[in-house]
Every structure is written in C-alpha cells, then in structure tokens.
C-alpha cells in the first residue's frame, strides 16, 4: 500500500470511486492501516440512514436492494450497498454473486448514459465482502465499511446479508432500520414465532408476493406481531413493524419498501432513538474489536510453547480441560503482552 490513507480519503470524499474501493480493501485487511482510517473518519460519519437487509438465500434480497438503489440513484440520492456473502470454511474462497442482481437493474437514464463518468457519478456504489472466517474480522470490517460510506457522503448505506451467523445478525440489528425479507413457502406461523432475526425487524417485506401463499405469510407475521403486542415485547414507543408486500423482480412494491424505511427513520428521529441506535452501533463495534483482540491473543497463546504444554497435559489424565482453560485465561488476562 503506497498511497497515503488520508490522500485516498480526501479523494473519496470528493466522490472518486477508485480511492474508495482501495480504502474498502484496507478495511477488509484490517490491522494498523484500518485503525488509522477508523480514527481519521470517525468525526465525519453519523448522518447516513443505515439499513440492514436480511433474509434466506433466494428470498430476493439482492433483487430488492438492486431495484431500491437504482430507483434512489435515479431520484438524486447517493446510495451505497455492502453485500456480504460467506467464505468457504475449507478454502477461504468465495463466490460473491450479488452484483449479478444489483448491477443489472434498470437503472434509468443514469445507468444507460453513453458517458461512463457521468453514468458512474449517479450510479450506486456496490461493494461485495466475503466473511473470511471467524478470525477474518468481519465484525470489525462491516461497521468500519459502513462508517466509511457514511463519512464520504453515501446515504442511505444498505448492508445486505443472509443473516446466518451471529456477526451478521448483530450487524443487521445494529442498523437504523432492520429489514427482514420473507417469501411464501418458507414455513408456517410456528416458524414466525421462533426466536431470532424476526424479533429485531423494524420492517418486513413479503417478497415474491405474486406467488401463491404470500397472503398466508402476511397473516402469520401479523399474528406474530399481535403476540409481541400482547406480551409487551413491542417497543415501548408503540412502533409496530409494518409488513410490505413486494415483487422486486417486477419492480412492484419496492417504492413502498422505501417509504416504510423512511417512515421508520422518521419514527427514530421523533423518539430520539436515532441517537441511541447510533450509540448502540458504536458499542457493538467496540465490543467486536475487544473480542477480536482477545481472540488473536488467545490464538497466539495456543501456538506458544507454554500454551501447547498446558494443552498437552490434558491428554494425560493430570489436567482437566476446565483447569487448562483457567490456567490459559489467567495467562491471557494477566500477561496480554506475552509473545509466543
């Protein structure tokens, strides 16, 4: 990395795309450069509407997001998309296929403009990110990438993820507006009442609403929300997540999705929850950073001669796993500087 981080950042703030692309790679790699960037941009971020979109594979998230951002860009907004897809646990490789749905959307005049620079200036910025395994730092990379988009002037910033894995759930639930995409044929009302992502949704989209069973999904969700109301889980401010029917592939209902997201943002502003959400987001990021630091320290300890000795003692009957882990924990917390 030869170019200076603050130079790249200054160029990105002027709307240049390539420097932003390079900064996002720095974010993905993590380490001291990413930390420097984090400190540099912190004061500039905080105004964008952060939207998390999640749902099962094949529920139409990418198509919905593609339609949404292309409409937003056509009406003068500057949307950015962070599309998270899983890395293979075996090889670390990944196929990041969200752009297939996102770039292709009828982007109006902007996307078809003959002049590439003009077209580009108005096009949504889309970045694909692979999860890169548990120690790959996704929990650090996503919030920093979101802050970076925010700091250089993109609004809204949309995070798209399958929502499996704790990190993805944390990221989506820490957004200003958490959108859960459902489709017909994915289960009944019992599924809808299981604990999980449905509990953190601020907005439901029943996608593929042209298909049979879409009304059933809406009814099951409605019933689930009635029960949340009954048990008092519904937010104390009386906000009830709306259910929007859409058929993103045909462009139906996506404007309603955006209106519902804007309405939710209005609700956050009116109840001063916008600030508390942002603070919660920062807390989540800090927590993830501390956990990541501990994880790296633990990995180093496992690899160290001392760590291996302690672990190998459990192979013979003289040390139980809980005693070994306690000994390692003591080492970790009392001597964090110890090198392998």
């Amino acid at each position, binding site marked *: 990395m030869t170019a200076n981080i603050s130079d790249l950042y200054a160029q990105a703030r002027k709307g240049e*795309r390539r420097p932003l692309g390079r900064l996002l790679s720095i974010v993905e790699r993590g380490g001291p450069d990413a930390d420097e960037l984090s400190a540099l941009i912190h004061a500039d971020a905080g105004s964008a509407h952060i939207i998390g979109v999640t749902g099962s594979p094949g529920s139409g998230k990418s198509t919905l997001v593609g339609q949404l951002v292309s409409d937003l860009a056509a009406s003068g907004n500057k949307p950015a998309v962070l599309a998270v897809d899983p890395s293979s646990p075996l090889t670390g490789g990944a196929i990041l296929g969200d752009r297939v749905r996102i770039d292709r959307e009828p982007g109006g005049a902007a996307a078809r403009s003959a002049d590439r620079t003009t*077209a580009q200036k108005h096009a949504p910025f*889309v970045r694909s990110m692979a999860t890169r395994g548990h120690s790959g730092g996704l929990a650090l990379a996503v919030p920093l990438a979101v802050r970076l988009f925010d700091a250089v002037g993109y609004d809204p910033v949309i995070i798209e993820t399958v929502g499996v894995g704790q990190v993805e759930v944390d990221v989506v639930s820490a957004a200003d507006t958490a959108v859960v995409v459902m489709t017909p044929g994915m289960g009944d009302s019992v599924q809808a009442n299981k604990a999980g992502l449905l509990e953190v949704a601020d907005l439901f989209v029943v996608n593929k609403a042209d298909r049979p069973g879409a009304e059933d999904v809406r009814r099951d969700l409605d019933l689930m929300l009635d029960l949340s109301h009954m048990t008092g889980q519904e937010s104390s401010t009386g906000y009830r997540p709306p259910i929007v029917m859409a058929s993103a592939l045909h462009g139906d209902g996506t404007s309603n999705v955006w209106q519902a997201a804007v309405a939710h943002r209005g609700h956050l502003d009116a109840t001063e929850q916008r600030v508390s959400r942002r603070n919660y987001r920062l807390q989540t990021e800090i927590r993830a950073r501390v956990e990541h630091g501990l994880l790296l320290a633990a990995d180093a300890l496992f690899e160290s001669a001392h760590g291996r000795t302690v672990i190998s003692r459990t192979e013979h009957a003289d040390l139980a796993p809980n005693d070994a882990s306690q000994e390692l924990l003591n080492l970790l917390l009392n001597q964090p500087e110890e090198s392998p």
Partner: protein
Amino acid sequence: MADAPIRIILAKLGLDGHDRGIKVVARILRDSGMEVIYLGLRQTTDTIISAAEEEDVDAIGLSMHNASHMTLAPAMVEAVRAAGLETPVIVGGIVPDEDLEPLAAAGVAAVLGPGSSAEEVAATVRQAVNTNR
C-alpha cells in the same frame, strides 16, 4: 494480518450466453481460495471497469465462446488501461492457436483454453496477479 485473498471479476462481455464454463471457473477459483466477484452475462467494458474500481480487484477474467475474442478482448484491455488501471485481463474459452500471439500483443495477460486443469486455471490467475503486483 495474513495475505488477503486474490479478488477477481468473472464476466462475459457482450452477447454470449454460454455460461457453463464461467461457472465452472468461478467454482475452481473459489476452491483455490480466491474471492470471485461474479458479474455473469451481458456485461460491457464500462460495467466491468466500474465493478473493478468499486471492488478493487486484482484481475479481470473474461469468458468468451462466440469468436468475439479478437474484437472484445483487446477492447477490454484498452478500456482498462484508458481508465488508468493496471489490472491484468485473462481470457478463457474457445481461442484458436493462431490468435494467441495477437491477443498477447494486445495486452491480454493469459489465455486458458478448453481442457485446462483446475490447477492450471488457478496457477495462471495467481501468476498474472503476482506479475502485476
């Protein structure tokens, strides 16, 4: 931090619907530890360059099965260089032997024909990226 994985765009340029090969190559590269940004069918030089900038990729892979390689591959290289990018462009698909030299002269980093093994495909991409890095 460990070395970041190679990031590569795979795309088909223009009107060429034969996408079995590109899907096989995507899987081969994924299984050799790379991150494949899959753009798929009917791309233009502009959509590929925009994606290359936003995704900050190390290489661009074009799959060509409709004899357009002598027109579109050099056009792609030219467009990439005109945009100020050094990104290597690799072509895979049906390319007659006599076209290999002109393509190399036009700046195509490598050509992978039918019968290339998974190891060859991955090694060729790695070499093109490392030469450029």
